[in-house]
């Protein structure tokens, strides 16, 4: 495969974005830590650093997924300002080789954010504040600049963006009585949003520190495979702060222990500590900048949890067909069959915690 890619690149070098003179030889460094993609850094001749990166699907079965990601990025690149364009992948050169869709794009500069905020299993307050500010600023900028929708919610939009995810969650999850009751109440509250002014914005879908490259005071954001052109506000933001904290305490995205997810959830959104205060302040600032009424924070927060339940359910169900299955540890359901366990992963339990304690709302809502 790489020999085909090398032949192709040497031949088509001048078609690549910002290509100089064609090299005589290429070498490749493969990084296969992504979920569905494999990345190869491309070194031209004896150059010190790679100029381009080639992204390939882990299997041809993921071609469509990769094409979907390309389409999302291309749409976005057409829509945003030049300075924001520099913060997302591209420009991209797409080719099909040996049945694989291959994307070639310039390497984005920077160091992954998750390596910059954690010191010995704890968040470092000063570097964390700086990185949170960078991510917060970028998210607001891109959401303001990309196509968005700022009008009253009609019935169809309300269904697509708010109610249907909740219905899907109910279908795919094993809920307790109190969780079902909470879901019903949430459904009523969401339905009551019809006719209210609640904006919809671009959604990245995997906005976590590991997907953010930091280069001094600039950032670039990778991995757009879960993105949607429009979604309720704050989903990416809540996800970012929770995963920033989780990563710092070495809590993986899926297969950590339930007890640790609960503790992290509390620390980030409900606790009284410097980080939760920081999150609350930035959440309020986000609402102000993007014209989101703070009164809707409880519903949007629950929707963030519901969205994660659905996203992880889809991801894990697909993964079970092809690979190692990450599953929550330390939950009462841990000994059940994998199919049953998929119906109660971490975020279902976190929703349950909201259900039994209806006064437990994020600090920012107080």
């Amino acid at each position, binding site marked *: *495969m*790489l*020999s*085909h890619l090398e032949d192709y690149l040497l031949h088509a070098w001048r078609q690549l974005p910002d290509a100089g003179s064609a090299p005589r030889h290429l*070498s*490749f*460094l*493969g*990084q*296969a*830590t992504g979920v569905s993609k*494999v990345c*190869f*850094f491309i*070194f031209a001749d*004896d*150059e*010190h*650093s*790679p100029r381009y990166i080639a992204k*390939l699907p*882990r*299997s*041809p*079965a993921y071609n469509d997924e990769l094409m979907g990601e390309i389409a999302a990025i291309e749409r976005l690149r057409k829509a945003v300002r030049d300075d924001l364009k520099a913060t997302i992948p591209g420009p991209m050169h797409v080719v099909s080789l*040996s*049945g694989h869709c291959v994307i070639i794009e310039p390497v984005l500069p920077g*160091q*992954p954010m*998750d*390596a910059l905020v*954690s010191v010995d299993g704890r968040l470092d307050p000063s570097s964390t504040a700086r990185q949170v500010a960078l991510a917060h600023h970028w998210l607001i900028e891109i959401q303001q600049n990309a196509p968005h929708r700022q009008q009253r919610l009609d019935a169809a939009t309300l269904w697509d963006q708010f109610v249907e995810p909740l219905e899907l969650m109910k279908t795919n999850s094993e809920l307790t009585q109190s969780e079902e009751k909470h879901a019903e109440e949430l459904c009523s509250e969401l339905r009551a949003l019809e006719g209210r002014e609640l904006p919809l914005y671009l959604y990245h879908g995997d906005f976590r520190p*590991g997907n953010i490259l930091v280069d001094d005071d600039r950032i670039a954001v990778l991995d757009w495979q879960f993105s949607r052109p429009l979604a309720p506000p704050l989903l990416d933001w809540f996800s970012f702060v929770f995963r920033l904290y989780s*990563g710092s305490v*070495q809590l*993986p995205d899926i297969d950590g222990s339930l007890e640790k997810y609960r503790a992290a959830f509390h620390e980030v959104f409900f606790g009284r500590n410097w980080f939760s205060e920081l999150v609350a302040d930035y959440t309020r600032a986000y609402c102000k900048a993007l014209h989101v009424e703070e009164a809707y924070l409880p519903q949007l927060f629950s929707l963030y949890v519901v969205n994660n339940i659905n996203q992880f359910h889809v991801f894990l169900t697909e993964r*079970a*067909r*092809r*690979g*190692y*299955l990450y599953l929550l540890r330390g939950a009462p359901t841990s000994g059940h*069959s*994998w199919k049953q366990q998929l119906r109660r992963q971490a975020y279902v339990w976190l929703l349950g915690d909201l259900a039994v304690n209806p006064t437990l709302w994020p600090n920012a809502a107080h």
Partner: protein
Amino acid sequence: MQKAKSTFNASELGYQPYSLAATLFCCASCQETLKASANGLQCRSCSEYWPVKDGIPHFGGKDHRPSVLTDAQRRKVVDAAVDEGWEIAIHDVLRSIDRVAYRQAIDEYRAQWRFILPLSSSDYVLDLNCAWGAVTFNLSEICALVVAADPCSEYVRFVAQRARQKGQNNIVPLQLGLDQSLPFLPRRFDTVVMVDSLSWFPDIETQRLILNRIHNVIKTGGCLFLADTNRLSCVSLLGRASAGTPHTLHGYQRLLRSVGFRRLREYVLAPSHMEPFFILPLDTSRPLEFFLREIIARQDFGMHFRSGPQKLAFRMARAVTQRGPTRLLARLARPFIPSFAIVAQA
């Protein structure tokens, strides 16, 4: 000795992939044609006989790899695959027995090195010591046919079950140990893959014999993908689970050349050949320098590394790469890299 017409009546095995594979097989002893008899395969010339159990030809051979699972545990997994389906067998039964074995049994990450191979959709591939088939199934998505051979009959029964249940008809499971003559006609495979296998054999002469047999079944211009442990890696120096004879990079190169392989291309698989998350060529220093400078020293890809059994090694590597000149470090690190992969042309 080559008999190009060699074949057996595959339809009598009752399993479709064997009709595809029929033109591959021959008598392992005299390379004459095979015929299907009541319960097995028999050489038309020397009458040697190999049983077929559950539709899977058994060509014999011992397993030289250490196993973390007992025979009974492996049988339990396969029985579950037969009775309840391969997904339950893997995700519920094997997972509950051993998480590492579970991960390696199914994780398609294990075959990421396939990108360095010149594979095409018309290729025939032989996966030696295929175990539960993680690599087999990945390769079968991009190749015409994968022969999945393993000395452990439970492993190949599982591969057969999973392939049948998925309706995948380009996988041919065989019970076959590396210590046996290969029951394939010469020059039938475009690629042979052998991961974590050769080094478990105790002496260099046996290893040479195995490589020689493999060389004979690869088409001219085809290749062997060999991935194994470095004799000078920490894992080897601290003592592996059992005896074996891993080599240095030069040792593997000499061995491969001694049986006729040529145009060797060498790679690093990191953190190991069983978890090839990073693939680096060794014929140029820049990728390794970049890996040390930008990935080991600056990325935090490694929650896995920070908390797993490799925590100490990762911390040390990180501390060194953050301080040292990477060009020099890349040179110094080269001999001690944990695992190598070599793509060798026949």
